[in-house]
């Protein structure tokens, strides 16, 4: 591209918002929220500004991995209805710009997090970015229908990083918070894949409904929902779970299992007849599920003084 073409091509000029969209703001909000909960429930204290700055670094790191994902996946994003409005397929941002932003912000976020808090947290953030950009995006996504199972780990690290910002270590409790999001990701995405099946098929992404059919996907959703309930239950035995988490756990897992059973009992004909009503509501419920669990942990941490007196602070 010549200098003249850059000046003369108004379509190429992206707004600031187009560059911001590369960071996947919606995914970033989940990262910020779960990292914040990890930071709040961790034992110990950290200066409020260091906490804010650390969360900002985690958000930027998560956003940077999103930009790297958009750079590498630009070819399939152009094909899929859900993603063709993204900045690269829309022609607003070039692939090279996305790569440069992704690498620069990744390095910035990791180094600044290390300087602001500690290098355990920074190392976890670096590993998260590597896992999402390389292990999931470049390797698993196009090669195995289990892509979302293993790749889900990338989205599950933020609460562990938030925890590490305060404590500087990795514990069973922070690992269980990781496990909660890790086990939640497969049923969440498979429900989406059931009603967005044709999108993944067109892009030749080996999602479970494409490779193994919808019957197998429905079975998988049910099994993973039950495993998720066990994982969420395990958190009850940690010091961070209190009465609010117990209530959220009981209500949300009951609803989630009922939703999974509904999906399991249906076939494609029934789903198409009501435009995937059960699958869509299960997908929406999955968002509320994660939000409720992490919110409950946060509320329990804030109310810990009250519940200490009641003797309920973790079952053990």
């Amino acid at each position, binding site marked *: 591209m010549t200098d003249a073409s850059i000046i003369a091509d108004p379509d190429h000029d992206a707004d600031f*918002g187009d*560059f911001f969209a590369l960071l996947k703001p919606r995914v970033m909000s989940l990262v910020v929220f779960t990292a914040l909960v990890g930071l709040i429930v961790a034992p110990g204290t950290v200066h409020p*500004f260091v906490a804010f*700055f650390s969360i900002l670094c985690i958000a930027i790191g998560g956003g940077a991995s999103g930009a790297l994902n958009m750079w590498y996946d630009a070819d399939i994003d152009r094909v899929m209805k859900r993603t063709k409005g993204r900045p690269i397929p829309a022609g607003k941002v070039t692939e090279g710009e996305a790569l440069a932003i992704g690498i620069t912000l990744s390095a910035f976020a990791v180094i600044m997090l290390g300087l602001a808090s500690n290098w355990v947290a920074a190392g976890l953030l670096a590993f998260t970015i590597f896992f999402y950009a390389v292990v999931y995006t470049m390797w698993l996504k196009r090669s195995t229908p289990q892509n979302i199972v293993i790749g889900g780990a990338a989205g599950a690290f933020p609460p562990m990083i938030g925890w590490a910002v305060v404590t500087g270590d990795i514990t069973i409790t922070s690992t269980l918070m990781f496990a909660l999001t890790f086990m939640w990701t497969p049923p969440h995405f498979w429900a989406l894949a059931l009603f967005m099946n044709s999108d993944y098929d067109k892009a030749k992404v080996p999602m479970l409904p494409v490779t193994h059919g919808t019957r197998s996907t429905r079975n998988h959703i049910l099994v993973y929902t039950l495993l998720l309930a066990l994982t969420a239950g395990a958190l009850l035995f940690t010091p961070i779970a209190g009465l609010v988490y117990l209530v959220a756990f009981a209500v949300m897992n009951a609803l989630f299992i009922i939703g999974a059973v509904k999906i399991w009992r249906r076939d494609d004909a029934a789903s198409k007849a009501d435009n995937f009503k059960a699958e869509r509501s299960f997908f929406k419920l999955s968002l509320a599920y994660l939000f409720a669990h992490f919110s409950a942990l946060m509320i329990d941490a804030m109310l810990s003084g009250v519940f200490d007196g009641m003797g309920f602070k973790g079952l053990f």
Partner: protein
Amino acid sequence: MAITKLHEMHKRRKSRNVGLGLVLVTFVGLILALTVVKVTTTDLAPLGGAEAAE
């Protein structure tokens, strides 16, 4: 009357230039604030103790 003529390209790129400017100003502010927090909360007692011993 302006002594230079604003190119049409500058108008098109105003949003990203202003956005980048704000990001850079925010970055400088954050680093300044982080420096103040680190300097005021870091315990420098061992250093002071060593100096006192000399």
